[in-house]
């Protein structure tokens, strides 16, 4: 337990340094959410005319949705680093050293959190340029970053846990793809809940992706319902803790395969 904090620090530093050494990766990471926002913003511009949308501006509505979708698309791949480490032999070296397993999981989540915060800020800036107005101001943005980070931590853990179980890039890509798009569409990321089919309206309250979207959008609104925000943030925190715990247990599954 005493090694958890320092080991998390050292391992996070390792991951962030590696990211900074790949400029092409950074560019793609930053450009991708911009494309989402520009493309969807144009394509669905008139969707707000549908009954069920409370706002008249789709960019206002979409920006938090794209922030949360970007989280899924980034952190769903977190497990790729684990698989590269397995292929390379780094994983076995780590696991035969006194490194804290929890720190390996936490470092991956923190590395994702940094990426997520940078990506989110870029999306917000592009949104503002496109004319979005966030009445919730800075506190609203901070809540959105928190929701995004918590969701990212859950997904990174899930992706890592899956990586430890399936152990091949192909299987992980399949799993991640299978999860991210449906979970996005089963939330109000791009479509107001009241404008979605009834069965999706029934499913989305159980979807943590929707919690993150709703909490962000609510906090960014002119008159936030803070109790609705905090309930969802609490739910996201609980999911992140459980996902992190379960994923750390998956190291045993990996070691059993050796």
């Amino acid at each position, binding site marked *: 337990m005493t090694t958890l904090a320092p*080991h998390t620090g050292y391992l996070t530093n390792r991951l962030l*340094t*590696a990211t900074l050494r790949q400029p092409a990766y950074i560019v793609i990471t930053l450009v991708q959410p911009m494309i989402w926002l520009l493309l969807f913003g144009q394509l669905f511009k008139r969707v707000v005319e549908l009954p069920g949308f409370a706002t008249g501006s789709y960019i206002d509505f979409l920006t938090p949705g794209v922030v949360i979708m970007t989280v899924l698309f980034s952190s769903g791949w977190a497990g790729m680093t684990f698989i590269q480490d397995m292929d*390379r*032999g*780094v994983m076995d*070296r780590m696991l*035969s*050293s006194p490194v804290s397993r929890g720190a390996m999981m936490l470092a991956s989540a923190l590395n994702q959190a940094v990426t997520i915060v940078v990506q989110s800020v870029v999306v917000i800036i592009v949104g503002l340029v496109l004319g979005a107005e966030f009445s919730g101001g800075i506190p609203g943005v901070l809540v959105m970053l928190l929701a995004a980070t918590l969701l990212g931590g859950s997904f990174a853990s899930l992706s890592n846990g899956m990586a430890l179980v399936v152990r091949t890039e192909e299987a992980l890509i399949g799993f991640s793809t299978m999860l991210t798009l449906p979970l996005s569409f089963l939330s109000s990321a791009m479509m107001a809940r009241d404008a979605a089919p009834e069965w999706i309206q029934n499913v989305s309250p159980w979807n943590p992706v929707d919690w993150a979207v709703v909490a962000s959008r609510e906090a960014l609104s002119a008159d936030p319902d803070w109790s609705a925000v905090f309930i969802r943030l609490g739910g996201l925190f609980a999911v992140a803790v459980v996902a992190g715990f379960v994923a750390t247990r998956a190291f045993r599954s990996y070691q*059993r395969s050796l």
Partner: protein
Amino acid sequence: MTHARETAIEAVELVKKYGEVTALDRLSFSVPAGTVFGLLGPNGAGKSTTIKILTTLSTPTSGKATVAGIDVLARPNDVRRAIGVVTQKSGTDPQATGRENLLLVAHIHGMRGRAAKTRVDELLALFGLTEAANRVVKQYSGGMQRKLDVAMGLVHGPTVLFLDEPTTGLDPQARSEMWAEIARLARHERLTILLTTHYLEEADHLADHLVIVDRGHLVAQGSPEELKSELRGDAVVIDLSPDASVDAARTAIEGLAGAREITVSGRAIRTRVDHGASAVPAALAALERSAVEVAAVTVARPALDDVYLQHTGRTFAAAEEVAVL
């Protein structure tokens, strides 16, 4: 208590099953502290499985083991603090520099600040990596990566160092450099090295004691000298021409006075005789009488290959003969 101090590694009746497959079948051995101990066997013999169990990566189906006097099953984290591990695949992070790789190990083992930095500089110098220290490992040659691997295994001053196939995939130049490094480490105070290899000459060259494993079984153990001295005489290998009859050749050799341990693999007949040089003319004469055409004859002093052959009935895949007649 003295026993625990003198024995660095004790494996007792280790069994490892993967489903129906038995990778280790009651393997037992013990490694005296301060020695280089070789685990020799062909690919798939169970060497890596043994290392994985001893380094706490894997757990045996049954049996037990201690490393540095610590039970690997009961106190894995204490074992991890006492050992250095160089896995078969490299364990280096290709995106990090050599220095960063070493510092991470130092930090994980609780070394801090100046102490960690000094230790890392020391190892970089020891392995001739000072100049490359700030380059990312991706740019290192295979030999340099392997040296960094070994350096990473030594950062925290372990009492037992595991080297799993340390020279596999290295070119001859890098291999001989690695041998020199390992020999130098072996002279170092109290370090115990467990080395796995499928190169006979590597075990012969480096190990004080060795065990030969085959299909999860221990087939022989002792020093390379002891193992070789069990064998009397020289190995004679006769390669037959493509159209010669192998059966006729075998019968001819069996009729030869003093020929022992006759085995056939492919178109090669192998036998053991007291004096290779004097047996060859007689063997060639016998083969000629049987109208068997011979492509080549080699005579070799006893090597670990022969030990392996004698105990398993199979030759090591890449049998390298010493003398050619």
